[in-house]
């Protein structure tokens, strides 16, 4: 810690430090780009992973919280930037250092109207390009008259703007072309069965080869972060189940952990173990759905029926304990909401018995198939450096050789008590991503196997106050969801509602990497790439 502080002080003498769970440093915007470059390139600090950019409205100032992580040491750092000019808010962009910043900064612009200087593409990300106002500003006018439901189609842009800094320090607006006038642009989505939801790619093609992809998001942007600001903490929990509905348990676990950390609540052992078992069951069911739908996209429809057969047995287990097949509402602040069903242990053991056989069956039917091999091997190769730069975590990142499993790097809950291997492959292609998921099912089974006979007796939920008020401060928590590192940022001003609640989803980064790895490939490969990245669109759009 002290080492980082010294190095930053040397570079930016007027930096202000705030001690907290993560070291926070406030710097002026004019020093930010230089500092960022140094933090990334310094061999000892090596902050090469930009975890999140949280756009903030502190009423008197606007700004961002930039969470950085070192892939070498796992250390985290938060850099706080502020600007007092609300009408013409500008900050410097770091999208040239971290590719993931491209989408993060567009999101901040969309929500808060902060313009990023030198960002190559300053367009709205989620909202229509004729949307009025910036919804996450505290003074946003939410009346339906300002933004009624429009039934006319919005114009797609063939050009965008960039605010370029001139040598004399002034900022000049420049027009940047997205598509050349003679590009042949094919529109894929938002209603397309292979985009796994309502994602839209505007694809410039040369024959069958992809030249460029421009992604449109926001076709399922529900404004959850703004909604949460007017709800009490327990009321915000149910949104997490509906973000990435295939990681419902993990997402909710994350928000609960973050609130518990802020409250200083100790979660009972029993609840911790139950949560981990549920998380792993969820991961298996998610990966099973991936296997089914992905193979169906490639034309192997039979696999859907095989995979769904096993998934239904897991849903049965969930249903007996949580009372629902999806959107379980099971974790709560302090523990879990209900005790395990009396059949739980028996059912899980039955599942542990059938799963290895089922996996073998999948491998026989699909993995070794020559068509599957030809369509996946060497398709959509993502290198380790790019995976880190684009922030692609989870199975997709691990298939590129980046050991980014939060369960290993920052263990939480009962994960420290269990033994399991982090599945890492080095090829980085679609086949590797597929195989990582298959192996992760095996590892999840291993974790459950270790815990199922050792569920401790005792309370399922700690005592928490009826009205939950967090002290002043800000907290960031990550868990390993089915698709990667899912993060929650909470800033509280001491009230019973959050001042700002931000969900940092793994899927947005995956969508962001598609243009990079699909470029130069064939249109048919886009389906393979989208399938193996396995994004869930409501998680991208939130």
């Amino acid at each position, binding site marked *: 810690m002290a080492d980082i502080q010294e190095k930053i002080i040397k570079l930016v003498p007027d930096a202000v430090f705030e001690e907290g769970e993560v070291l926070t440093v406030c710097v002026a915007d004019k020093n930010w780009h230089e500092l960022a470059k140094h933090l990334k390139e310094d061999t000892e600090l090596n902050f090469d992973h930009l975890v999140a950019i949280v756009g903030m409205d502190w009423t008197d100032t606007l700004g961002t919280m930039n969470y950085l992580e070192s892939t070498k040491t796992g250390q985290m750092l938060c850099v706080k930037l502020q600007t007092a000019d609300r009408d013409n808010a500008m900050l410097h962009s770091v999208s040239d250092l971290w590719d993931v910043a491209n989408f993060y900064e567009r999101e901040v612009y969309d929500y808060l109207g902060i313009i990023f200087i030198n960002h190559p593409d300053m367009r709205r990300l989620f909202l229509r390009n004729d949307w009025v106002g910036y919804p996450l500003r505290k003074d946003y006018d939410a009346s339906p008259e300002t933004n009624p439901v429009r039934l006319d189609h919005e114009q797609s842009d063939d050009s965008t703007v960039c605010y370029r800094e001139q040598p004399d320090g002034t900022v000049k607006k420049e027009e940047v072309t997205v598509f050349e006038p003679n590009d042949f642009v094919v529109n894929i989505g938002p209603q397309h069965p292979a985009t796994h939801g309502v994602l839209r790619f505007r694809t410039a093609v040369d024959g069958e080869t992809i030249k460029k992809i421009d992604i449109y998001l926001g076709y399922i942007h529900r404004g959850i972060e703004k909604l949460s600001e007017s709800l009490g903490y327990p009321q915000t929990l149910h949104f997490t189940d509906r973000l990435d509905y295939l990681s419902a348990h993990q997402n909710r676990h994350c928000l609960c952990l973050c609130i518990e950390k802020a409250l200083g609540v100790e979660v009972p052992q029993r609840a911790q173990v139950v949560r981990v078992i549920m998380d792993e069951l969820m991961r298996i069911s998610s990966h099973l759905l991936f296997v089914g739908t992905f193979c169906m996209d490639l034309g192997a429809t039979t696999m859907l029926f095989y995979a769904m057969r096993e998934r239904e047995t897991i849903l049965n287990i969930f249903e007996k304990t949580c009372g629902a097949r*999806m959107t379980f509402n099971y974790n709560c602040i302090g523990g879990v909401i209900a005790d395990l069903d009396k059949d739980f242990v028996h059912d899980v053991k039955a599942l542990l018995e059938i799963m290895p056989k089922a996996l073998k069956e999948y491998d026989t039917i699909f993995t070794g198939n020559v068509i599957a091999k030809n369509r996946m091997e060497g398709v959509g190769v993502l290198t380790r450096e790019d995976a880190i730069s684009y922030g692609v975590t989870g199975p997709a990142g691990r298939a590129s050789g980046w050991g980014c499993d939060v369960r290993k790097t920052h263990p939480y809950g009962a994960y420290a008590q269990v033994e399991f291997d982090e599945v890492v492959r080095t090829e980085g292609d679609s086949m590797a991503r597929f195989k990582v998921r298959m192996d992760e099912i095996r590892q999840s089974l291993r974790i459950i196997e270790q815990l199922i006979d050792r569920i401790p007796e005792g309370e399922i939920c700690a005592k928490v106050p009826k009205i939950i008020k967090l002290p002043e401060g800000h907290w960031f928590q990550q868990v390993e969801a089915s698709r990667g590192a899912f993060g929650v940022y909470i800033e509280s001003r001491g009230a019973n509602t959050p001042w700002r609640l931000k969900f940092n989803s793994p899927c947005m980064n995956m969508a962001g990497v598609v243009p990079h790895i699909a470029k130069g490939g064939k249109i048919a490969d886009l389906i393979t790439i989208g399938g193996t990245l396995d994004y869930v669109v409501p998680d991208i759009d939130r």
Partner: protein
Amino acid sequence: MPYGDWKDNEYIEHLVKELRDNGTNVIVGTFDKLINWGRSNSIWPLTFATSCCGIEFIALGAARYDMARFGWEVARASPRQADFMMVAGTIVHRMAPVVRRLYDQLAEPKYVIACGGCAVSGGPFKNSYHVVKGVGEIIPVDVYVPGCPPRPEAMIYGIMQLSRKIKVEKFFGGVNRQEKINRFLNEHPIKETPEAAQQQVMEEQH
């Protein structure tokens, strides 16, 4: 299933009564029955899902719930080949024009099922700045299926209600639902924002 167990839908009972009261032509009436019998047993859905409800729709297609038993398994990716649209999931402002266009592209006769809390009323996201408060605001809906998400059984029940509705419809002449749809569409026109105005809003923001 005996008809008595099904007597739970006032709307359809009303339709049946109206049909009986007015009487039907012997030949046309028989044709009606035959056509409706065929149509009600082979309604093809459009694969359209925005969120969680879509996963339950996949489960509906898989072996356990097996919608092929009812003749619904031919899910089409193109609206031009589908009979009904299962709006499964939240519809937001940006998606609204797309949903409307998909509806317009469906071939007649067409039906809509609003599936899940979000499509019915906006559900848990009702107060959001970017969520349409029920798909009924932009397209005419035939059947509402509540739930978050509805269980596959509920979806089966919902589509069966649609089958019943088709069975008592008049295909040839008479009062049919076409008029009602047209009235709805006239009341909810697509207002084209002039390009200049749209451009101006964008200019102001930059």
